């Protein structure tokens, strides 16, 4: 199991993630001789109240332009965004970047359904929800203002 620590700041427990097309969508593009968009780095807040991971509209834009489309709708509880929401999902690849910089220590989820939301003004571009946390151990140490994440 890989473990990493980070500070808790005014926005909460923030981590670095990379988003890219799902493995299936990238394969479809390659088989068609089309370019696959490069991964996009984002700051993400760990949100234990969010059922589903959310990504900012602008961050998703290059992937939508490359042909990523919504594949299903979901009823999700997102208290930070107003409560129960019926929204459409994209299947994306999401990589939780380990602070060591060692790519082999990253958590890679190659076909994760994510919701599109406008998050830009909040200071981070993604909410990491319980769909990602179910692969992790998460300890929030409010006294020392640090968190631990293991996966």
């Amino acid at each position, binding site marked *: 199991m890989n473990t990493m620590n980070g500070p808790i700041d005014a926005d909460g427990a923030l981590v670095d993630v990379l988003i890219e097309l799902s493995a*299936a*969508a990238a394969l*479809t*593009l390659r088989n*068609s001789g*089309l370019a696959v968009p490069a991964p996009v780095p984002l700051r993400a807040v760990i949100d234990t109240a969010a059922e589903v991971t959310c990504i900012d509209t602008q961050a998703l834009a290059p992937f939508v332009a*490359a*042909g990523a*489309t*919504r*594949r*299903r*709708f979901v*009823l999700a509880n997102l208290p930070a965004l*107003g*409560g*129960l*929401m*019926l*929204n*459409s999902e994209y*299947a994306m690849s999401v990589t939780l970047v380990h602070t060591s910089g060692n790519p082999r220590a990253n958590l890679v989820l190659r*076909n994760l*359904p994510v919701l*599109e939301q406008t998050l830009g003004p909040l200071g981070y571009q993604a909410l990491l929800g319980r769909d990602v946390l179910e692969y992790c151990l998460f300890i929030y140490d409010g006294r020392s203002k640090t968190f631990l994440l293991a996966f």
Partner: protein
Amino acid sequence: MNRPIHFSPTLEVLRAEIVTYLRELPRLLAEGQEGRFALIKGDQLLSIWDTFDDACQAGHELFPMGTVFLAQPIEARYLNCPWPEQYLPRKAT
């Protein structure tokens, strides 16, 4: 579902597929298909799959990249949602 539900404008892209899903959902549930995944394009239910990945793969094989289709889990809870009028299937006259 007593709490209010917000309907995202992004659902509009899938409106035709959602109408088809809601039209077919009672029959699929009656056939015991709950938990499986319906592949839907426009007003047609194309096939039923065991996993989301299988349904998506079937859709990718059928349609070019960027084509709208739905790979939706068959769930009874969506029958109880207060869907806006434009998503509800028209009743036969």
